[in-house]
């Protein structure tokens, strides 16, 4: 199972949604995920992948795509300073 599939599975599980409802291009708004649901999903992701997701990165996660993208980079140990910069200074990352 790749990161995207795992993220979709976790979001569906935590939101008690039927399989198939959560798609790779779903946004949190479309899925009815509010801010509290969001921190719950982050907690589940941290537990699952055994990582710490910094608050500044977490604030950027408002869609499945953003979660997968951020998570992949954290997992691969890549530089995430541009993600942090988004939260701090509002600079649009190149990937978006």
């Amino acid at each position, binding site marked *: 199972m790749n990161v995207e599939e795992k993220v979709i599975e976790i979001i569906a599980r935590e*939101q*008690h949604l039927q399989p198939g409802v959560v798609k790779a291009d779903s946004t949190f708004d479309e899925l009815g995920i509010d801010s*509290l649901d969001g*921190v*719950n999903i*982050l*907690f589940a992701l*941290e537990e699952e992948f055994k990582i710490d997701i910094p608050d500044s990165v977490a604030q950027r996660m408002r869609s499945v795509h953003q979660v997968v993208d951020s998570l992949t980079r954290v997992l691969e140990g890549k530089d995430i300073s541009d993600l942090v910069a988004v939260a701090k200074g509002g600079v649009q990352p190149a990937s978006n």
Partner: protein
Amino acid sequence: MGVFASVGKDVCSFFKHLSAGRSGVRRITQFDPSSLCVQIAAEVPDYQPTEYFSPKRLDLLDRFTQFSLLGAREAMNSSGLEIPEQERARFGVVIGSGMGGAQGLDEGYLKLYQEQATRLHPFTIPRIMHNAPVSQVCMEYSAQGPSFATATACSSSGHAIGEAFHLVKFGLADTMLAGGTDAPITYGMMRSWESVRVLAAGNSEPSRACRPFSADREGMVIGEGAAIVVLEEMEHAQRRGAEIWAEISGFGMTADAGHITQPTIDGPARAIRAALEEARVNPEQVDYINAHGTGTRLNDALETAIIKEVFKEHARNIPISSTKSMHGHVMGATGAVELAATVLAIRHGVIPPTANYTTADPECDLDYVPNEARERSVRVAISNSFAFGGLNAVLLVRQIQ
């Protein structure tokens, strides 16, 4: 009114069992109690949260909040109350809890301390906070008026109902949902209570463990559950043709300022007098007392002295019962559960007994309605709550003329 407790999961079965003197105390099933000295409690039997709540909803509901919602649902359904949108701001919720989200806290700390987890579930705070039941009930019924939680240990729900009564009486709200809830049967809580040395052991015969006012009493039994009442301004209730079960007409609250666990005579006595005064009722008019009656050596003897101090010679004529002998000490919910028993005594003309009474105690020499319910018209009754910490709440209820 709504009740969700060990002796009954609705008002009807609750009072049926109380009147029959049936105890809800049994061996603890929520966790393996083998290592505890006291392995019994008044647990809600066969409780499956998924029967009542969706999985999504349950994520945010600690056990004590679940109970409060179940109590509120029965209260709202049986009252037939529907609050139109323009009246929501005059509809509020006050719910007391002594222990708060004990389950969530226990589970969280277990992970943190024993399993060495480095983070806790993000729903921990919204689940365990003392006001979670209030907020969840507000959301379920769109109550947007004065709403808050009370936390005065064993008097929490006495204060909750009393404060809600005053909000209605003094015109700050038309309708209130008020009561109490607690789910303190966790390993940590049981150990904490054990160490105070006020619990009845009684592992071999749980249903007989709690024996208030009896000379062989050994202490209290922890219980869980909730009771919620609908309080409504009299004319508001009459206008909509509501079935009115009783009228709350007095509330007395005092602080002992004495000792952190040991009650005084003066503090509770002043609370009873304040309730009588507010209701403009003479002591001689009181014809039932639902006692605090925990079943500890100290409480029951002192409560007897308190009742004699206030009611003088009339004390001997008043039937007094401790329904804690059956539903246990429901902590922050106990005042509400006992107010429900008091209201039902008025409504049905049946005084529930003090169960498990075996032997007269010279220090407890009043009429405790031992073991058998008594048919008797009750016009004016009081329900006593005297908390650890010396904070007292006494509610006075009367029959509707």
